[in-house]
């Protein structure tokens, strides 16, 4: 055997270390949870960057918008108006978009979403904290109600397929999905608010009655529910049909599966077969769709909240777009993107608990 020189030994030692480092990095990357989180972070960054430049491509900027307002209202010269507006705004319209991006992104990394351009001194974070809970409440309960209802009705349709009940529900479901949500919003206002006069739509502005004291007391809770009811109904009506039809087809295919047949031959009670054997398996694909629809419903919230003058995040975003308040808009986008991506992340990481077949090693 040839003796190795110390140099060679050191070199191989180094190579081994590199190999091991490479292996451990690879192992970390192979870890499902880690990889999903990294993907989520990249997604958030990409979407936020994209929207940053997108809002800057909109015609006009916050200063132009306000200058126009002042020009119309006070009849002063353009230069005068420009000076006044520029002085009161924390915004330099002449800086390049790229400079603005790096400025803003550096702040975001320090968890600072900046202050509003149009109302200087107002922190965007505070505004979002004020509006976001209402949106999450309305969208969340709307989605939850329509999801649960859709599963129950969809299963009913599958169990009574080709009966008159199935035909009527199918028709309703197709109709509900076919009509866009903003039309539903308008229809609900016109029918429930004006024709039937069940709701005093005019008085239901905002998220709760200002005469009540926020807190855990009955009048406040009732008024919160009252204000959120119509937007929630809109969310439910516009998404319910999809759940019903999906659940119906999913249930019908599960009903043909051998294990349901065997479960019946095993003499299991119907209640157990419907829940643990049919329902659980049939609803699996719907959970994936649920995470996708969170994004869609949050996005549609902008229009719905504006229609019902429900002061949630969509309402705030709408106001920011009208005044071209870049920082506020971006702040909302960041939060919306994080909410959607986070919801998907949770769904991805918990799906294994619902379906053991996709459970990855290390998850029990």
């Amino acid at each position, binding site marked *: 055997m040839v003796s190795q020189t110390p140099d060679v030994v050191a070199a191989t030692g180094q190579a081994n270390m590199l190999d091991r480092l490479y292996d451990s990095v690879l192992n970390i990357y192979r870890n499902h949870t880690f990889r999903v989180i990294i993907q989520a972070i990249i997604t958030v960054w990409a979407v936020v960057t994209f929207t940053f430049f997108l809002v800057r491509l909109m015609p006009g900027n916050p200063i132009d918008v306000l200058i126009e307002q002042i020009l119309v209202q006070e009849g002063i010269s353009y230069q005068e108006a420009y000076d006044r507006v520029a002085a009161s705004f924390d915004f330099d319209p002449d800086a390049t978009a790229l400079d603005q991006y790096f400025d803003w992104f550096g702040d975001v990394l320090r968890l600072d979403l900046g202050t509003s351009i149009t109302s200087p001194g107002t922190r965007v974070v505070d505004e979002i904290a004020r509006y976001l809970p209402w949106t999450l409440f309305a969208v969340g309960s709307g989605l939850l109600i329509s999801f649960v209802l859709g599963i129950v009705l969809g299963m009913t349709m599958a169990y009574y397929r080709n009966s008159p009940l199935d035909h009527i529900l199918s028709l309703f479901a197709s109709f509900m999905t076919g009509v866009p949500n903003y039309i539903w919003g308008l229809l609900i206002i016109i029918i429930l608010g004006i024709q039937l006069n069940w709701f005093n739509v005019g008085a239901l502005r905002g998220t709760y009655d200002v005469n009540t004291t926020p807190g855990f007391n009955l009048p406040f809770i009732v008024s919160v529910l009252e204000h959120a009811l119509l937007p929630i109904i809109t969310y439910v009506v516009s998404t319910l049909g999809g759940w019903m039809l999906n659940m119906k087809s999913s249930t019908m295919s599960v009903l043909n599966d*051998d*294990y349901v047949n065997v479960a*019946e*031959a095993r*003499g299991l009670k119907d209640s*157990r077969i419907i829940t*643990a054997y049919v329902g*659980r398996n049939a609803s699996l694909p719907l959970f994936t769709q649920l995470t996708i629809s969170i994004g869609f419903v949050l996005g549609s919230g902008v229009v719905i909240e504006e229609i019902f003058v429900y002061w949630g995040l969509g309402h705030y975003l709408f106001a920011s777009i009208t005044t071209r308040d870049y920082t506020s808009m971006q702040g909302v986008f960041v939060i919306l993107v994080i909410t959607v991506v986070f919801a998907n992340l949770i769904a991805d990481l918990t799906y294994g608990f619902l*379906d*053991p077949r996709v459970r990855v090693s290390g998850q029990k």
Partner: protein
Amino acid sequence: MSQPMNDDVVLRVDDLSIVYQTKRGNVQATTNISFDLKRGQAMALIGESGSGKTTVSLSLIRKLPKNALITQGQVLYQRDGNVRDVLKLSKRELREFRWKDCAMVFQGSQNAFNPVLKIRTQFEDTARAHGWTDKNAVRERALELLRLVRLDPERVYEAYPHELSGGMKQRTLLALGVLLNPQVVILDEPTTALDILTQRAIIDVLNEMQQRLNFSIIFISHDLSLAAEMADVVATVYAGEIVEIGPVNDMFYDPQHPYTHGLLTSVPKLDHEQDFVSSIAGAPPNLISPPSGCKFHPRCPYATDKCSEDDPTLTGEKPDHLAACWNKDALLEAREEIARKELAQ
């Protein structure tokens, strides 16, 4: 078959006829099926695909498709001296009857288990549905049965279905089948879709289980070697009728019906040189408008005019070996001829 049921008969199918109602007309799936199954006996129903074997077995636990209609007959089930007609059980009685008295292991049990529940949960579900709530006792019994089917009991009991191979699932289903100590176990093609070694293992396991637990078996197969190995009694089913029934040795060495004989000669033999494998000419008849007389006559090499006019009934010299054929003598001659040729070779 209207004599009283002896104590050792667990299941009597009496003159059972079933039709499937379809848009093109009524399909006569089974006609006047009758047989007795004794305690501890294994009976094989053999026949081509579409001959009505599965329909018979499904009717025993009333799991027939919705368009099936039982036009006549009864399925009598005897346990501890009580005789009940399965076809007259109420919905609740039927649910309790299933699996506890008569378990069925379906064809292609690869998907017989709910994919999202552990094997343990599915054993417990079955036990609880029949009023057995002591989970520890269920566990003990299940582990014992899983050991009997030669699986690693602890591991399989805590596994999800997708973690088991096809053969393991089939054996787990067998163990689940006898969990409640049924008197009758129906096996629909218990070894199809399994490789030859797994088939062997399943057969061994079944034989051993039957010896230990003493249940009766009805199994449906087109695998004649399986029938030869496992069955005490073999019934040949053709076009929804039992055309021949008898003890396994009589059926294999002294077939009285041309169809049974045809099935037997269509199996390649290992101890003879064969240039080709013979088959039964023609195809199974259309059961919406079956042939007149003996339904086999269009395919039968020994058919005479009588065969197309009159439907033969099950008769035989021995009381336990019956065949429905007018020309048993012609078949006998033909068999002797074949035997002479083989001897001459």
